[in-house]
Each structure stands twice: as structure tokens, then as C-alpha cells.
């Protein structure tokens, strides 16, 4: 399997993607941002379609759109009760734009399919380096802002009254989330990004009692799903994202059963 360049590329990129999704997912779950993650994946699709339209690599279009839109959502949803409708409005606009750019770019349906569902086989060496570089940036930002981010994510009231700059933390997290969404889309596609960004962390929280352990287990679940998904995709020639989604959902169901038993 590893004699093929595309499989080596897929495993390297997939491993880095799983690591950042496992880490970011912990904060996505703690900040109840699963819906925003789903929306950012749709916005990523629009960005990729714009990239195709403009003749750019799809990931650059995704980065541009997800970062801008995450800042807009952040500004619009300063009041928490307004967050869901703000996200819905931004999502509606960007999906419409995605359809428009795909239509204008005169590309056939396969480009839309690869954006939506991922195309692990098509990852080149230079894209692997880009994914690795962006993953390292994401991990470094999380490392440096970890304490403030953890405080604001797990005890937002305490963070605010104790002087954490919660608006700044929120914006940094949204940008990091946008970067992660754009990177993760390369493997699982924009439609299924939220699988890796939410389910491993959501499952992990039922098995452990500390944030560090939750993060470790979340990374483990994300890597397990990605590696197994890539291997099964190689064996069967079925879509990798199908296997990753199925494995992560299975882990989540086991976690729920474990939580009920505990």
C-alpha cells in the first residue's frame, strides 16, 4: 500500500489532520460550536468553488472564505442567543455563492464532488507540505493560547470575571477553526469535516475525567478513524470519507453506551 505515492501522501496528511481535529474538537465541544463547524464546512465548499473559478488551488479559496466568514460570524454573534441565526444567515449566503462560482467556473460535476466528499488520491507532495505547515501553525497557536482558551471554553463566566480577554480568545479560536476546516477538507471533503472536528472529542469526553486526557483520547479516535478509513478505502475502492464517518459514529455510539453504563 505504501509503495504508492498517493497513499503515503494521504497517510501523512491524514495523520496531521487527525491530530489537529482531535485537539480543536475538544474546544469545539466545550464551546458548543458543532453547528458553526458544520457551517464552516459549507463555507469551505463555497471557498473551494471560488478557488476553482479563480484558477487557484481549492484549499486557498477555502482558507480565504472560512477565515473571513468565521470573523463575520464572530462579530455577528457577540450575543450568544443570536449566534444560531447569525450562523444560518452566513451559511445561506455562502452556499449560494458556492453554487454560483461552480456554475460560473464551467467545471464539470466531478470537481464539485471532490470538494464536497474529499479526494484523498489527488493530494500532491506540495499539498502535503501545505497541510503539514498549516497544522503546525494551528498547533502552535493552540499551544500558546491554551490556558486562556481552556478557561474561556470550560468556564466562560469565570474567564470573563477574572479578566481573560474573551473576545480576543474567541476570534483566535474562530480563525484556528477556519484553518482546521480548510485543512481537514482535503481528506474527508467539506461535507464531512465536522465528523473529525466533533465526534472524536464528543466520544472522548465520556471515557475520561480531565481535559488533557480528553484531548489525547480525541486525537487517538481521530487517528484511528482516519488510518482505518484510508486502509479500508484502499482495499475496497470505496470512498475514504464513508469509512471515516462510519468508524467515528461507531466510536460515538460505544461512548454513549459506556456513559449510560457508568
Amino acid at each position, binding site marked *: 500500500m505504501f509503495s504508492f505515492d498517493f497513499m503515503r501522501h494521504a497517510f501523512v496528511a491524514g495523520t496531521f489532520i487527525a491530530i489537529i481535529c482531535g485537539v480543536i474538537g475538544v474546544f469545539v465541544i466545550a464551546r458548543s460550536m458543532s453547528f458553526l463547524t458544520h457551517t464552516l464546512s459549507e463555507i469551505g465548499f463555497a471557498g473551494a468553488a471560488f478557488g476553482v473559478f479563480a484558477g487557484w488551488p481549492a484549499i486557498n479559496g477555502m482558507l480565504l472564505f472560512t477565515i473571513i466568514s468565521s470573523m463575520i460570524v464572530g462579530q455577528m454573534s457577540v450575543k450568544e442567543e443570536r449566534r444560531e441565526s447569525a450562523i444560518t444567515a452566513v451559511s445561506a449566503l455562502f452556499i449560494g455563492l458556492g453554487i454560483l462560482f461552480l456554475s460560473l467556473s464551467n467545471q464539470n460535476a466531478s470537481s464539485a464532488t471532490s470538494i464536497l466528499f474529499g479526494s484523498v488520491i489527488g493530494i500532491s507532495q506540495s499539498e502535503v507540505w501545505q497541510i503539514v505547515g498549516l497544522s503546525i501553525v494551528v498547533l502552535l497557536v493552540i*499551544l500558546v493560547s491554551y*490556558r486562556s482558551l481552556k478557561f474561556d471554553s*470550560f468556564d466562560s463566566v469565570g474567564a470573563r470575571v477574572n479578566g481573560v480577554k474573551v473576545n480576543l480568545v474567541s476570534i483566535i479560536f474562530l480563525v484556528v477553526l477556519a484553518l482546521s476546516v480548510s485543512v481537514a477538507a482535503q481528506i474527508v471533503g467539506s461535507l464531512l469535516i465536522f465528523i473529525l472536528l466533533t465526534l472524536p472529542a464528543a466520544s472522548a469526553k465520556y471515557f475520561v475525567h480531565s481535559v488533557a486526557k480528553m484531548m489525547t483520547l480525541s486525537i487517538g479516535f481521530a487517528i484511528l478513524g482516519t488510518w482505518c478509513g484510508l486502509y479500508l478505502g484502499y482495499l475496497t475502492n470505496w470512498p475514504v470519507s464513508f469509512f471515516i464517518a462510519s468508524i467515528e459514529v461507531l466510536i460515538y455510539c460505544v461512548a454513549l453506551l459506556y456513559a449510560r453504563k457508568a
Partner: protein
Amino acid sequence: MDDKTVSAIKTNSTGDVTINKILTIKHLTLAYGDKRVIQDLNFDLTKGSFTVILGENGVGKTTLIRALLGQLKPQTGTIEFENEQQTVKLGYVPQFRNVDEEYPLTIREFVALNLYHGLTPWLKRQERGRVDWAIKQTNLTQIENRPLGQASGGEKQRAYLAQALIERPNLLILDESTASLDVGMKYELLELVRRLQAEQTLSVLFVTHDLPLAKQFADHFLLMEHDHYQTGKIEDLKITKAGEGHV
């Protein structure tokens, strides 16, 4: 005059007797837009005292605390913290928390959240020592590795208190911290606060509606009413509404 009041009184260089204050509020008016919530409040907080803030809902107790925390600017008047050469550090235990019970967060981890200034994800030895100290002070050592979601109401309040103590404040503000506790736990928590007040030379501002509790633990009061404010020693507190245990 109790011991704490005596210790807060000293003689200045000219021989005049002065009260050692940690907080002075002069002619304070607070408002949200056009709506005035507090008007012309004057209040001194004696260093080392346990002062209770009493008043019905809507009189501006939480608004006053927001101003003390620097979250709301006075429309007029001043709030001055003074503590000789030392900086006044505030510790605040808010009324409401939204910590999800399913979060995998131990009591120790929750307390350590307030050490958020460092750039490393892990705590340094000196920081771990501060967590140990705060946990010990609030009698949480035995259960420090228990998930916060599994702690009882009283244990949670002690964890909130420990988190506020970790920066070693000299002024502790408790916003209705006993409201959701049963009688036994209320007394247990306030006994703990009173011990900390004595041992750590803390000044305490405690917001509550519970008059018997206030009379039991506080030595000074600030009674806030819609049209005026009263301050003084707790034994001088007169509530005109007969037979009420709550204000």
C-alpha cells in the same frame, strides 16, 4: 468594638485616629444608558471586615459589583481601592456558572483554570503549589481529582471559592454564593470564608438576601434600597419590614 475593627483602626503621623479602609466609594452613580440603577452611593469598606450587601432584587447589587470589577464605568463619582503599599487584588465568586456537568474537568483542573497567564499548557512547580494551597484552604484535597460535575452543591461552591483564591486576593466578593445551598452547607461555606478572612487578612463583601445568615457572619452591612442606602455595623441593622428573613 470587635478585634477586627480594632485592628483596622490606627493612628496616623499627626496623631489622628483613622479607619484603615480598603475601598472608598464616593457619590457613585451607575446607569445602563438612561436608566440609573445606583444614585449617589457613599460607602467605605473597612480592611479585614466581613461586610454584607443586602437589598431586594433590582436595587443594583450586581451592578455595583460590576463597577467594582471594572466592567461598568461610573456615570459620576469614584471608586478607590487603597491598601497601603500593597495592590488590592480582587477575588470574585459569581452568582451563576455555566460549567457543563458532562465536561471531563476535575476539581483541581477547574481551580487551576484561573492561572491563565502562562504560555505553557502545563503548570510550573510554583503554580502547582498555588493550586495545592487553594485546594487545601477550601478543604478539597480529598476530592481534588473528582470531576466537578459529580461534586455536591457545597463542594462546587468551595471549588468556585478556591478558583477565586488562587490569585491570593485581599478583597473577596461573593455574589449570592449560598443561594442554592441547604442551611447546613450555607453555614459550612461561610464558616470557611470567615476562617479565611481571619487567617489570610481578607476583606469580604458578601451579597445575599438571607438576613439571619448576614447577622450571623457579617460585622458590617450595606443596605441598598431604591431611594437610599444605609451602612453601619451589623448590630445596628434595622429592617423595617417586620418578620422577614429575607431582604
